[in-house]
């Protein structure tokens, strides 16, 4: 697995030139990428969500599209539309912004459920259907969606079943004062990511994704993972536990994390570390646990507590 460590480190360094002081976020982003997953960034505006997505795309030599979700956005604005070509006397499909490798879906909760679901469908199928025609999406394909947790007016919050399509939910958070100073000291440019040079080709990413599948997870670790999932289903604090898809997602994410950290086998640490990030948006916190205000932190804390109760195989 020596050949995987080098490119991953390169891409990590590349992105951290732009995103300062957030090595964990970058690592998790890479995990999502390598696990063929999608990322939901839930944070306030202006902390670098777009920049993160952009710099990832630039580092990979991949195409990047940004879709600003508004309430009047239509599904065709995302997937594309068939237009009648007068010269050819035929309908011609004009691909939408989803035909990119990295797609940033900004403020996904601002658009209508109909439009949301067209995106989510594309995410899970890796292809779209327009007018009885099926068009495969580009590979690698990764959606980075953002949500603003502070605003609720005029939003259509994603239901839990839809949230399930995202591999993990992340916060970027404010950088530390020192790191923030570095950001300010940097030569001002409109798009800092534009200066990045690609370190990986799209094909390399696909190779790395294939390697994730070969990462070894020992049997007792699989049991450990499942007992964490089981714990979410049995906890009184949770009204809806993690689904099998959630367990599968955690397993894939754990393998990707092991690869990112230069191992070809998983460790209990990987599982424990990833569980809150991968599972917290897949559970419904019981009503008895108060209002759904700040449910993100609450769900994460519940998962963390549950993980603390599951014994690690020795």
């Amino acid at each position, binding site marked *: 697995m020596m050949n995987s460590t080098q490119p991953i480190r390169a891409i990590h360094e590349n992105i951290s030139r732009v995103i300062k002081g957030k090595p964990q976020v970058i690592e998790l982003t890479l995990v999502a990428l390598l696990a063929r997953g999608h990322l939901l960034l839930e944070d306030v505006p202006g902390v670098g969500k777009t920049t993160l997505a952009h710099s990832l795309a630039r580092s990979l030599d991949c195409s990047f599209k940004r879709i600003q979700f508004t309430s009047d956005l239509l599904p065709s604005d995302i997937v594309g539309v068939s237009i009648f070509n007068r010269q050819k006397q035929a309908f011609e499909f004009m691909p939408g912004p989803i035909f990119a490798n990295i797609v940033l879906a900004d403020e996904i909760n601002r658009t209508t459920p109909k439009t949301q679901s067209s995106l989510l469908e594309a995410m899970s199928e890796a292809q779209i259907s327009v007018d009885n025609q099926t068009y495969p999406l580009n590979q690698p394909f990764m959606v980075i969606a953002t949500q603003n947790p502070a605003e609720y007016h005029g939003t259509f919050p994603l239901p839990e079943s839809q949230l399930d399509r995202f591999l993990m939910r992340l916060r970027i958070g404010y950088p530390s004062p020192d790191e923030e100073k570095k950001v300010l000291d940097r030569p001002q440019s409109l798009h800092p990511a534009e200066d990045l040079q690609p370190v990986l080709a799209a094909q390399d990413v696909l190779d790395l994704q294939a390697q994730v599948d070969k990462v*070894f997870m*020992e*049997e*007792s*670790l699989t049991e450990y993972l499942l007992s964490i999932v089981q714990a979410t289903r049995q906890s009184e604090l949770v009204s809806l536990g993690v689904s099998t898809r959630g367990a599968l997602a955690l397993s894939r994410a754990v393998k990707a994390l092991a690869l990112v950290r230069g*191992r*070809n*086998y*998983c*460790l*209990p*640490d990987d*599982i*424990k570390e990833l569980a809150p990030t991968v599972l917290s948006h897949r559970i419904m916190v019981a009503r008895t646990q108060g209002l759904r205000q700040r449910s993100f932190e609450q769900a994460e804390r519940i998962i963390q507590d549950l*993980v*603390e*109760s*599951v*014994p*690690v195989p*020795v």
Partner: protein
Amino acid sequence: MPCDQALRLTSIVLASASFVGLVLGASLPGWLIFLTASALLVALSRTGNVTAITSVVRLVTLSPTTWNVLVLSGFLGFWIDSLWISGDLLTSGIHFLLVLMIIKLFNLQHRRDYVHLFAISLVAILAAASLTSELWYFPIFLAYMLAGVWTLLLFQLTKDAAVPSAAMRREPEPLESNRDVTPKLFWLANGLAAATFGLTLVIFFVIPRVSAGFYQKGYGENIRTSGFSNTVDLGSIGPIKRDRSVVMRVELPDRQAHEVGRFYLRGLAFDRYDGRSWANQLSHRRSLSEDSPETFTLRGSQSHKPSPHGPALRQHIQLEPLDTPVLFAAPFAESINGRFPAIQADVTGALYLPFPSSTRIEYSAVSRSNTVAPADLQPQPAAYPELFIRHFLQMPVQSERIAALARDVAESKQTIYEKAVAIQDHLSSHYRYSLDAPLAAQAHPLEEFLFDRKTGYCEHYATAMVMMLRAIGIPARLVTGFLATEWNEYGNYYVVRQQDAHAWVEVHLPHSGWVMMDPTPADGDSPGGTLPAWHTVQSMLDSVRLRWNRFFVQYSATDQLAVMRDLQTGSASVRLRTLDSLAAFLRPLTDAFETGIDSMTNGGLPHVVKVVAILLAGCGGVAWLVWARPWNWPRRSTGAAGNEQAIVQLYRRMLRQLERRGIRKPAAMPPLQFIRIIQAQWSTAGTAVASITELYCRARFGRVPLTREELHRAQETFHQLTSLSRS
């Protein structure tokens, strides 16, 4: 099979072994046997996951409180039982033990339940041991020990697996283990059991003992014999001649297997016949003097002066508990060796214990039979003392027919001996042997036998001969005992059964003294019919039983002393032989050494130097073992899987070490996170823990085999950590 399932299985086997021991040793009520057996079966089928039973059992699953109430009521029942029902503390204790076992078998979930079951089984097998000294206990004990070793081993293995969860959960943890019983473990456990057994044997033979079978089932159930009381009705031996129960076993250390034949064991002699029954009027007993410890000698045991001339015959006799105090030996016993408080003898040379023994006893005897002196082959007038006339020439009513017959038979003979032989021959050739002779019912059974029926068995033959001899003035007496014919070729000893009970005649010759004669036809009195089909197996089993009794049940401090003496006397030769072979083995070395020394000192090298050199080498070897600890080396033969096991063990040991230091790894804490905790709390150990953990993770979760060097390094790191935690 996973370890936890195997533990369950061996625990049940353990309980079954002790249960069988109790059933065979004590007379238990049927319902209790039934209940326990079904509890064992249910527990066993739950191990095998028989779904029907498991679901039924789940239906009747009771809460812990109910179980506690059951145990308490069982305890109450135990007191009621011991005070009123059985009235015996031991019996009721065994009942209570079985009740506890049943409850535990239904409730076998947590680790402590296994501990309890183990304890119950231990007490049960001990109770069984105190109840019996029979041979069947041996296989049961073997099974118990095998299962015991397995259970302890598996308990320890599953304990290691359950430790983290134990730290985690408050409630008693259920058994869980992902380990399997590998072939290696299987052989290891069996080897361990064999080693344990060997050690037990050594301890058994070495430590001083008190006794065995305190509460033996046998007491009060002595074998009922016939013919060994002071009065014996004619015909009373007949009914027991079909009883095959073993009365004694006789070993003849001086005799070879091919020399064996009919072997007489003398019991009592009778002088007085009243027409229906024999009585011993000379039964006044006196105690024999104890010459050396445990050796009793008969002096002047013969009521007449001539001393026996035959060769001495040694016998080892193992006598089952009989209802008579009579001791048996080949005629005529000179000395008895056995652990008895006293031995008594009467004038006729019969030997008695002070009272019948309730247990199996063992003794040795030296006997010397009388041969006919040459002087008795010459015709001589005989004069008998008053005692003889009164006792050995007595006749109930002068029966003319008998006297006439005797005279008729012996008329042509000159000497007493010849006359006796003639009567003996007449009886054995003219009368038919049969056990179906209801002569005892007759008013004159002897006349009936001699003149009408002419059928009878040993008693009739012997009585007839004595009466005929007395009728012509020859002193004679009737002797009862056993005639052994069954030789066990596997153990080289005689098996004497009830059916071997026999009666014969002793004739007094003026110069030879009492001489044994037997008018019963030679083939007539041997155990009739064909041998049972299982004869070979039975003989083998019987010889094993003899050994069991000899070397385990009756094994005494005396035997221990004897073994020690043998070892001491034997040790000289053993020592010499060992040294010789060692010297031969080391000859090239010592030769070179000697020549080297010789060239320096010009003197021969004494033997002592060789021995000192060997001793030094031995000490060096021990020192090397202590220093290098080869048992800590990675096991070579086991390969990668063994390495993985080794590093996991090492990691666990490290965790225990750290725990002793006060840093405990919570169960939910993964290994890498724990490194950070260590680095924060005990930074000096941080690198050591990190390096062991790294190797552990690689082998345990990555299944990347460690090299021997890596494992060795990990062990060294662990030792460093140990010394760190000590400082």
